[in-house]
């Protein structure tokens, strides 16, 4: 009797131990799903883009100047789309970098505690507005307004897209930059005040340089967000697949081309594969930006002695 109960107690303990291990294993497997999805995305993009790379050489594809996917014979030059993406995104940076960093400085340095409690949520709410709403705003309100104001032939152009995209990326830059500023230890400021520097001097010579790489992270991620943004540029940029000559030309960024054409491209055709090739290039570009941001922000944390 005693032996049996001892044995059953033992097996109960074993059961619990096995159960605990099983839970840990399950969580471990599930935790790898993010990696799996990322790898899955890369594989899908490569596989679906491969046929077009086999057909055309990579130089013609990436640097070809003409994107006429539905002509006979079609031309698959992605270059105008890449240029359009950078053209629009760089324009957006001109808007969101000063506004974003300025707002971050305001929240961090000037705002009272009460103001902080108002402005920070407002910035967050601005960030939560869906891109389709920005696109709609740009298309229905901003474009006609700018067309009249600037006397330009088409309201839907790179300039309007940049402005809309810039507004959209501003809260991203603000939040990340403000985080970076708030990590700067108080002792840095105190040291500066103690030698008679005023607030502005302390801010520009001590706090901003100390938060420098954190602010760089904000700019890189803002750029990454702008390049990857789809609906806004799809609706606002005008859609012409040509290399822009001025800010007021209509353009077709990479994301817009994918979104607009995928629905009509016959599955398995050259056009379909070419669109995946665009997505692959887009993915590589944003991946590089994200890795750069990761790298810079890690250096920032190490510099300020923050862990993780």
């Amino acid at each position, binding site marked *: 009797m005693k032996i049996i109960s001892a044995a059953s107690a033992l097996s109960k303990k074993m059961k619990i131990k096995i159960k605990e291990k099983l839970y840990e294993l399950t969580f471990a497997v599930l935790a790898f799903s993010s990696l799996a999805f990322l790898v899955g*995305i890369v594989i899908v993009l490569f596989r679906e883009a491969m046929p077009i790379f086999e057909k055309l050489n990579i130089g013609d594809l990436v640097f070809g100047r003409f994107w006429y996917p539905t002509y006979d014979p079609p031309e698959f030059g992605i270059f105008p789309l890449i240029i359009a993406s950078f053209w629009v995104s760089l324009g957006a940076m001109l808007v969101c970098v000063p506004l974003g960093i300025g707002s971050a400085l305001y929240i961090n340095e000037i705002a009272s505690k009460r103001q902080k409690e108002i402005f920070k*949520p407002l910035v967050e*709410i*601005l960030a939560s507005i869906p891109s389709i709403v920005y696109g*709609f705003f740009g298309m229905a309100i901003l474009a006609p307004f700018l067309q009249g104001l600037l006397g330009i032939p088409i309201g839907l152009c790179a300039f309007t897209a940049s402005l809309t995209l810039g507004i959209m990326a501003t809260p991203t830059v603000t939040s990340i930059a403000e985080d970076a500023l708030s990590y700067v230890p108080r002792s840095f400021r105190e040291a500066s005040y103690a030698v008679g520097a005023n607030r502005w001097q302390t801010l520009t010579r001590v706090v901003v340089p100390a938060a420098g790489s954190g602010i760089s992270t904000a700019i890189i991620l803002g750029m990454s967000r702008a390049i990857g943004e789809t609906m806004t540029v799809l609706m606002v940029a005008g859609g012409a697949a040509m290399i822009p000559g001025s800010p007021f030309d209509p353009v077709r960024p990479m994301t817009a081309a994918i979104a607009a054409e995928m629905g009509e491209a016959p599955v398995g055709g050259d056009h379909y594969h070419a669109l995946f090739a665009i997505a692959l290039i887009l993915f590589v570009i944003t991946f590089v930006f994200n890795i750069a941001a990761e790298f810079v922000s890690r250096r920032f944390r190490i510099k300020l002695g923050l862990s993780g």
Partner: protein
Amino acid sequence: MRRNITEKIGFGIVSVCMWITVSFLFLIIFFIAVKGIGVISWEFLTSQPRNAMTAGGVAPAIVGTFYLVVGSMMFAVPLGIATAIYLTEYSPKSYVLNLIRISINNLAGVPSVVFGLFGLAIFVKFLGFGVSIISGSLSLGILVLPLIISAAQEALLAVPQSIREASLAVGASKWQTIKKIVVPAAMPGILTGVILSIGRVAGETAPILFTAATFYIKGYPDSPFSEVMALPYHIYALMTEGSHPEKQTAIAYGCCLILLSLVLIVSGIAIYMRKRERSYHHA
């Protein structure tokens, strides 16, 4: 003296930046509300579109968005919480932790349209779900997964180590501690993250372009495998397709106001909850 003038000018510029940023928020809300409010009525919210999208309501789009939100959350919330639990509670080896962390960060940076392509290739074609609620939900779920993971992680990390120790010290196993102490204590924080991601998912358009959305279906979707109308896609379609731009733009204003209100309310709730949460932890 000169440096004080510099300070004044500098602070002036910085303040202007802040005000411009905030005024964008109010401009967007203002314009959309002013033009959209006239369109919205009980009928607009509850009836089907009529006359080739130029009249009637947008009820199917609201319902469709609801399905997509529910579907994506059913997928992403358990997965996100499980990932966060593994990362914070089971403290894996640092290279494993870094690998997963970097994957999450990069997944968060993938352009939304790429999730649409992934969904198209995997869910629509490879798994044969077709253009459907389920394909769209899964694509949206992957997109929002990083957001849920980081919110859940933050919430779990905010649970004081001392109560984990207390639980282990009375002889609870690790799993018992996680299930009965840590996760319940982190629940409000996790919930805040979930609500934020609902706002995000409801407004996303690019991932559902080729995986779920359609401009028009008759009636309501009757299975996870049917196509749906969705508010954000509906706005896009109204603005770029169809033959009566004037009438369609008016309806688009209405849709936009509905979507905007939905997102603002949801993120407002999340921000409020988080504030309460934080003040609770500091108390």
